[in-house]
């Protein structure tokens, strides 16, 4: 009986050694993999940081100004902000055809050819009979 028990314990110990070794090796490989992935994350974050910096550089006001001037835009007239209270009401007749200077973005007079906008005409068909309404 003792011999059987001894044999069983030795066998169990051997199997345990093998299992422990297996787990240890898997842990070591997983740790290496984790380290590698963490390095990749760190490198990716560094790259993102560099790209964000590059974006900040190319989207900076100085470069935008250069591009705007190259395409015929100027500083002289800025889009003007306003409130609804200051917007002219439809039908208000301004006096003496004096020019409007607020409440709308004014495009500068440009030498670049303007593509005419085709304005759609209202259909004679009632709204209720138009497809999709």
């Amino acid at each position, binding site marked *: 009986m*003792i011999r059987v028990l*001894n044999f069983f*314990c030795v066998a169990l*110990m051997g199997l*345990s050694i093998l299992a*422990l070794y297996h787990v240890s090796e898997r842990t070591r490989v997983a740790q290496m993999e*984790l*380290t590698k992935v*963490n390095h990749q*994350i*760190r490198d990716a*974050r*560094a790259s993102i*940081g*560099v790209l*964000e*910096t*590059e974006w*900040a*550089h190319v989207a*900076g*006001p*100085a470069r935008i*100004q250069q591009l705007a001037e190259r395409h015929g835009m100027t*500083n002289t007239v*800025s*889009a*003007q*902000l*306003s*409130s609804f209270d*200051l*917007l*002219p009401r*439809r*039908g*208000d*007749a*301004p*006096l003496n*055809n*004096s*020019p*409007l*200077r*607020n*409440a*709308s973005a*004014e495009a500068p007079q440009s030498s670049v050819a303007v593509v005419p906008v085709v304005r759609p005409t209202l259909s004679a068909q009632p709204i209720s009979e138009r497809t999709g309404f």
Partner: protein
Amino acid sequence: MADGLFQRRIVIGAVFCVAAFALVGLRLVDVTLLRGGSHGGYEDRAVTARADLVDRNGELLARDLPVKDLYARPHVFWNKDEAAHDLAGATGADERRLRAGFLNAKHPYVLIARQITPATEASVMHLGLPGLEFEPSAKRYYPDGRNAAQLLGVTDPDNNGVSGLELGLQDRIRTSEDGEPVTTSIDMRVQYILASEIAAQRQTFGPRAAGGLVMDVRTGEVLAMASLPDFDPNARALTGDDTTRNIMVQDVYELGSVFKIFSFALAFEDHTTRMDEVFSIGQGYKIGKYTIHEAEHMPAVLAARDILAQSSNIGTAQIALRSGGVRQKEFLTRMGLLTPIRTELPEQRKPMYPSNWGTIETATIGFGQGISVSPLRFLASAAAIVNGGREIIPTFLKTDADRRGAQLIKPETSEQMRGLLRYVVTNGTGKNANVEGYDIGGKTGSAQVPGEHGRYIPHALRTSFFAAFPIENPRYVLFVLLDQPHGTKATYGFALAGYTAAPLAGRVISRIAPLLGVPNTAPPTRLADGNS
């Protein structure tokens, strides 16, 4: 007996094995269950020494980029001279320094270059030299280059701040939680507009230096601070007339007539003058052995409001003398003008004023000569004049809080001054700063420039303009300064502030007001393209 001994040994062995297995089992439980989820101390983000600096809109101002420091073990080089030559060519390092380091047996480890870029690293690797080591490092990069260079400051090769906000906010930048960016009060769009307009004015009038400031009168946030000439913080060395000096905080100036706003504020506060009170101007105003003259021809008499609008030195001197030197000094102290201003910027300069504050000093200080303050100090005090009369200390960190402090002058006095400043722009020397619809109030300043031996330099002026808008309920103040501009044909040879600084202020305001949400209140007239 032998069997008993044998069995005892087996039992002892079994006990040891059970104990060993129990220890292993306990360790398994400890590692998998009790400490599960930890990464064993590994940080899952790249560690940067300094947090980002961003503007009030989240736009990047400064960031650490990953670079490398290059070291070499010269004892493995086959040919040390050739290695020094090749590495100097690849990195830009000094070849003589490298050769001296390689040949010195005491130094087994020689620094070649710091903060080298990936392109330089590739060039070095291409050399195929042994014994090279790349240590990870960080280099501070400023995407907007010269824009706000003096304000942001720079760092040294060890990534320590040495000037500007990099130094002033050093602790906050280094200890930022989770690398969260430090948000400044700067608006890069306003900064660019201010700097570019000042640069254009510098081209036109050729001043030695120029600068400007934009500040929120309630929060004290400085939205823009420009100082020209400036420098490229990303470059290794200064070139041309580049300078790291920030004239808005590091230099003090006799600002001249812009200082008159304090004389008038004091007069209204103490009721020593009325807006419509008439003063005799004349050709010169004698005080002892001194005579005060006007910069331009003035009428024989002027009302108090016109004394400020036309910037009469004689009229202002009379108003200042009514307050007296003791009261004037007390008032300027209360306004903070006699003490250095303390902000997040480490650079500051103490104001300069006479130790003997007599009658002539009272008169000249009344119109801004004989007292020198930094432009930032002046603007903070002037903001208190227009913001309801409350003290405001500038800040370079974003905040939404109303930071106005103690009541320095009465709200009624502030209201009077706002009306008077508007009058200066509509009817006085500030007309060229007027922009329709933005209700700008302001004051010009054309100060003589002190030279050597206590005398003023002939024909040299330091011109400036202080503006507040919209003047009825000011949100922002602006100050621009040109140091010794030259007149042009277009200005009939004049370099006064009305021709140089005032138009500059007007152009800046017309461009930044829409960005800052200040509505244009010009009356509507007609709609475009017949849409009405």
